[in-house]
């Protein structure tokens, strides 16, 4: 009897899942599979639908002693290097700033609620708007950043933040840090607010320095949440497109893997080659996702009902 009920319940569960699964199959599984397939073809945007299978030639091939394909394209490797630098440096600073802001928000002071709300603002501003705002502030002739630095005597001539190939990537990183630090801060704050209060009382009674308390008590306790936030942010940073594309276009100095793939696909109309680049990016992120899922699996298992 009970098992009949259970069986009926499981059947209805699948019925409720079906529409969502169908839509996900249509908008996620199918396009992804097609992208994988296109990566093995010579498809082009101008004659979409008329293409032939060419195997792995988009990735790497040799013809009369010349190697070609993505893996032989120096620009691809520039994009890989830029993406990794972008992800690692921006996530590092986001984490440091995020933890500092979370610690401040966790202290009790008048106006804390207001500040907590203010922290959400950069997160709420559309990426396109953040990118444009900062591009304007970093403008080499009319930008306020150069003006302020000149007034303070920190620089003697205006700096071309976004045009100089040495600085452009770091300028974009700075904007990404500004935009996503609130997210890390909120994650860390959520973890901080779940910490037991008694060990802090004990530490205060013993007169242990707050910095020591942070590194020996707080940090180990919030580590799991921090790791999840960091991996989450890393996955996000690896696929960065908007901020880079809007601030510097297809410039080589800042080109990331997503920008490279889209340039091949849209600007050069090379669907096959672009899809191959996308496939490589997907593989890189899938690998990171597996690590992420392994890091959070314990939590999932523990919460199963």
């Amino acid at each position, binding site marked *: 009897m009970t098992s009949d009920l259970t069986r009926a319940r499981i059947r*209805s*569960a699948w019925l*409720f*899942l079906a*529409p*969502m699964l169908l*839509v*996900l199959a249509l*908008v*996620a599984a*199918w396009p992804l*599979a097609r992208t994988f397939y296109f990566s093995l073809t010579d498809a082009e945007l101008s004659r*979409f639908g008329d293409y032939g299978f060419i195997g792995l030639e988009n990735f790497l091939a040799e013809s009369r002693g010349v190697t070609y394909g993505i893996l032989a394209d120096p620009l691809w490797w520039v994009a890989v290097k830029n993406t990794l630098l972008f992800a690692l440096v921006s996530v590092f600073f986001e984490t440091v700033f995020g933890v*500092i802001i979370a610690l*401040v928000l966790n*202290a009790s002071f008048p106006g804390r609620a207001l500040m*907590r709300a203010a*922290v*959400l*603002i*950069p997160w*709420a*501003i*559309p*990426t*396109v*708007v*953040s990118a*444009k*705002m900062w591009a*304007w*502030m970093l*403008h080499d*002739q*009319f930008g*306020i950043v150069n*003006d302020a630095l000149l007034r303070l005597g920190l620089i003697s001539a205006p700096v071309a933040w976004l045009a100089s190939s040495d600085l452009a990537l770091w300028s974009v990183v700075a904007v990404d840090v*500004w935009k996503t630090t*609130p997210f890390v801060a*909120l*994650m860390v704050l959520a*973890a901080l607010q779940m910490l037991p209060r008694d060990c802090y009382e004990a530490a205060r009674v013993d007169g242990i320095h707050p910095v020591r308390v942070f590194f020996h008590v707080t940090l180990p306790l919030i580590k799991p949440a921090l790791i*999840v*936030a960091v991996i*989450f942010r890393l996955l996000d940073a*690896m*696929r960065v*497109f908007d901020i880079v594309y*809007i601030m510097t276009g297809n410039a080589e100095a800042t080109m990331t893997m*997503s920008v490279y*793939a889209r340039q091949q696909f849209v600007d050069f109309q090379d*669907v096959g080659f672009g*899809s191959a680049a*996308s496939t490589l990016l*997907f593989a890189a992120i*899938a690998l990171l996702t597996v690590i*992420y*899922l392994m890091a959070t699996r314990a939590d999932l298992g523990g*919460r199963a*009902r």
Partner: protein
Amino acid sequence: MTRLLKGAGFWLLVAAILFYLLFPFYYAVLTSLKSGSAVFQVSYWPTELDFSNYVRVFTEQPFARNILNSLLVSFAVVALSLSLGLGAAFALGRVRFRGRSTLLLTILGVSMFPQVAVLSGMFELVRGLGLYNNLLSLVLSYLIFTLPFTVWVLTTFMRNLPGEIEEAAILEGATPFVLVTRIFLPLLWPAMVTTGLLAFIVAWNEFLFALTFTLTNTQRTVPVAIALITGGSEHELPWGNIMAASVTVTVPLILLVLVFQRRLVAGLTAGAVKG
């Protein structure tokens, strides 16, 4: 004395953080309210209140239409995600069945897809369905990130509901459909509002698909319209217009976020930390 110094240090830190987080938007507002060539004079305090940039954004291009497009797409995406997500969250959050964890992990995996990885496949789908340069292409493609996220967050909230009400309803002979619509839906309203808002923000801000799947000015959404505001040449960008457009579409969003901030934080942490 050291206490005083410590207090001053703390407030200095608070001020520095607030300045860092808020100054860029303040400067965007400042720029948007300048007229003509004054835009190119750096100033730190408001010098004038000129709304001509705002007027120009709406008269020189179909910006009102772009806002309407964004609203239509975002509302459609939210409605679809919530209605599909609610049923799925019931199944994933309240029913025990084989393969549930695998399914949850797969859905989480989908939300990690780099957008570019589905770009060419999605482009083919959009063209195949005859939706190129049609707002429906955006509604369809945005589901790839709003749906997994909605399912995930609603499942988290669904799990935390007490079991007693459900058991009582089942004893009364409630069918699963009645259970979802009459018992869980009213209990989940706060979660639905949170998830809906987060999905709305994601859809409102999306850039890559909107840039690739629409072609004409009148079909563009707000982010693409702002990104493509151009002047006479590469070096004559109308920064006043760009900042006015930026402020116009950001102020409502900021107000929304401030009003719902507690809920949004709950939703964000449910979506990430526990996921």
